[in-house]
């Protein structure tokens, strides 16, 4: 997740609670418990709208 609001820089506690809130919202809405990392703006790769095909190469599949 890209951080854009500088007000969270007041303390590590604020950043951590933001992180936890995003994680909780993801869990509530999507049912996914995902680890959330805060990163600088415009550093995450943009969604390109293309299908990404994944081939499962695990044994026994």
């Amino acid at each position, binding site marked *: 997740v890209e951080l854009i609001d500088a*007000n969270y820089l007041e303390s*590590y506690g604020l950043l*951590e609670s933001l992180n936890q809130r995003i994680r909780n919202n993801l869990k509530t809405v999507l049912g996914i418990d995902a680890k959330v990392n*805060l*990163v600088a*703006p415009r550093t995450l790769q943009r969604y390109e709208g293309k299908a990404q095909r994944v081939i499962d190469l695990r044994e026994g599949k």
Partner: protein
Amino acid sequence: VAIRQLSAFVPNEAGALAEITEIFYRNGIDLRAITVYDTSEYGIVRCIVDDADRAIVLLQAEGVVSKISEVAAIDPADEPGSLARVFKLFGDHKINIDYIYSFVVRKNDSQYFVFKVDNISKAEDLLRENGIKVIESLA
């Protein structure tokens, strides 16, 4: 009159601090104090510069999430117990210290201590009332 401190968000990776200091260097911003500690993924750089208003415009123009906040700075007596006195004073008056760092000012051979507290005006009044030298300006 509090001291203005810059805080900037940086990823915890090699070269992240160099990006910030390069911006300062290219634009003639003089860094007086800097401190950072990190979590596993990121850190908050806190620094005191000679021109915080110009510095934050430069950082934001480069896409660095940053803000200015007010901190108290003191020049305590160079003797054992002088900081202990400050901490006791804050503790007695229920002023919570979020963080503290120090730096040396070469021109007057002093060591300044910077405090981020939850009630800065009360903290500065208390310090003055108790004869502790509060720094009004670092320019």
